């Protein structure tokens, strides 16, 4: 077992955990966190793959940076939707 494989498996495990959370959980903020954990899992797979060559693969690193920005953008939007949605439910009661 190499370090690359170790982190590949770890990434996959995180991804599965996140997926499980996304499907099983209901509280919006928790689901958003689940998606983020899923994302971390994929990124870990990608970074581990980048580690295969002697010099780490810059392409994968760049893709992960892009992925991180996408993740924060979506998270910000999702959180705001979740919070505003909850409040509107509260208003109705």
């Amino acid at each position: 077992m190499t370090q690359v494989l170790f982190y590949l498996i770890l990434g996959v495990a995180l991804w599965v955990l996140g997926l499980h959370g996304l499907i099983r959980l209901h509280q919006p903020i928790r689901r958003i966190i689940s998606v983020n954990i899923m994302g971390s899992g994929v990124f870990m797979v990608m970074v581990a793959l980048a580690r295969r060559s002697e010099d780490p693969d810059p392409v994968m690193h760049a893709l992960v940076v892009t992925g991180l920005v996408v993740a924060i953008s979506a998270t910000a939007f999702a959180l705001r939707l979740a919070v505003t949605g909850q409040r509107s439910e509260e208003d109705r009661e």
Partner: protein
Amino acid sequence: MTAALAALLIPLFTALGLLLLRSRSGPLVILTSLATLAAACWALVEVTTSGPQSLHLGDWPEPLAIRFQLQPITALLLVFTALIHLLVAVYAARSRHCRTRDTDYWPLSCLLQGSLNALWLSSDLFNWYVTLELLGLAAVALVALSGRKAYGPALNYLLLSLGASLVYLLGVALIYGRYGVLDITLLATQTEADQSTRVAFWLMTLGLMLKAALWPLHLWLPKAHASAPTAVSALLSALVVKGPLFILWRLWSEAAPVELAIETGPLLAIAGVAALLLGGWSALRTPWLKSLVAYSTVAQLGYALMALGLLMHWQLPALDAALWLFVLAHGLAKASMFLAAGELQATLGSKRVSALRGTTETMPVAMFAFAVAGGSLIGLPPSGGFLAKWMLLEPMLGQSEHWPWVAGILLGTLISAGYVFRVVALAFDRADPVPPDFKPDRFAHWLAMLPALVVWGLALVSQPLIAWLTGATP
């Protein structure tokens, strides 16, 4: 390629310009939409006369660059996107009931168009991920325009869309890990049907199916599409779900190893049949008008999925034409249907199907548009839906071992007839008509009619269209 780039950049610049000037000018968007349409048409002419083109972004060589690929289908989709966007923009600018006029609808819809065009042009697995995210965010933002009641469905849509992207992305990562490339054409030369490839393709397929609301991953769609503002529902159903479908098609028809495609095809086709039946069943049952239209999207995507699955299973490029005819016909018909449904429910002041009693008398044009569009969804001749169904039926009936699939189409047709005429029959009820709250807006009704007429008008150009599609798809 310049024309295609123009079709890509004009909407993006329009969106930025609108934001910069804090403008919510519908006419400006209509004007730039026209320009986009012109550019897209030009691209279509270019690709028809001088064949497919490709562009390495940044002028970098093969494995490094992101590549734009302008195929005939791409050009057609560019035109189609521009057309629907223009139509909906006119509606949004003009309709009295459209609540999106004074919102960020304008820049958002331009960004949506831009991201779709980026998706059609791209042929890079990771770039598709970014365009999918762009598309998803734009779509959710547009759904949320409808106000607080839409936030719940919008959030669900967003989360599932994000989850789906990450499922897709894991597939991409596995592909990169296995073959070290992201460009789909390069990938096509290398793929083998081993375990990694299989899992990677399945992951990408699942993610895309969720994004395209293909059965059984469609549960988010009806609520999201039904709660969006009318103009947005039309855009979402007609265009957005087609984006992931396009990627799915390119993946399986270009990059996937043949054994894998043959093996996976039946699963997709069965999912398609299930979508037709169960989506149609839900459309038959729902008490809400827009939900009915949204469920019909789920059902109709079943046809496309079926075409794709059988295309993979039988390795029949002829089914490409069926798939894209479905996409075109459904897009036009659905745009018409959502606009008509939105107008009807706004004018009647009720979202229930049962409120449509007597609408053939009070709002004949809108109801007629709904019925005509519905006719194409059922696949009545000589509408575009009929042409697509015919193209799908032909290879099925051609060989006796394919006959069982016909049952799916048969039932699907009957169910779609069921939910379309459920509405239409009610509209003829003169016993107790629901009086409209406002004077009907005839211009908007005719606008809703327009795409429905276009989809029936496809019959006039059917022969060249089919020949072009059959020859055009690689």
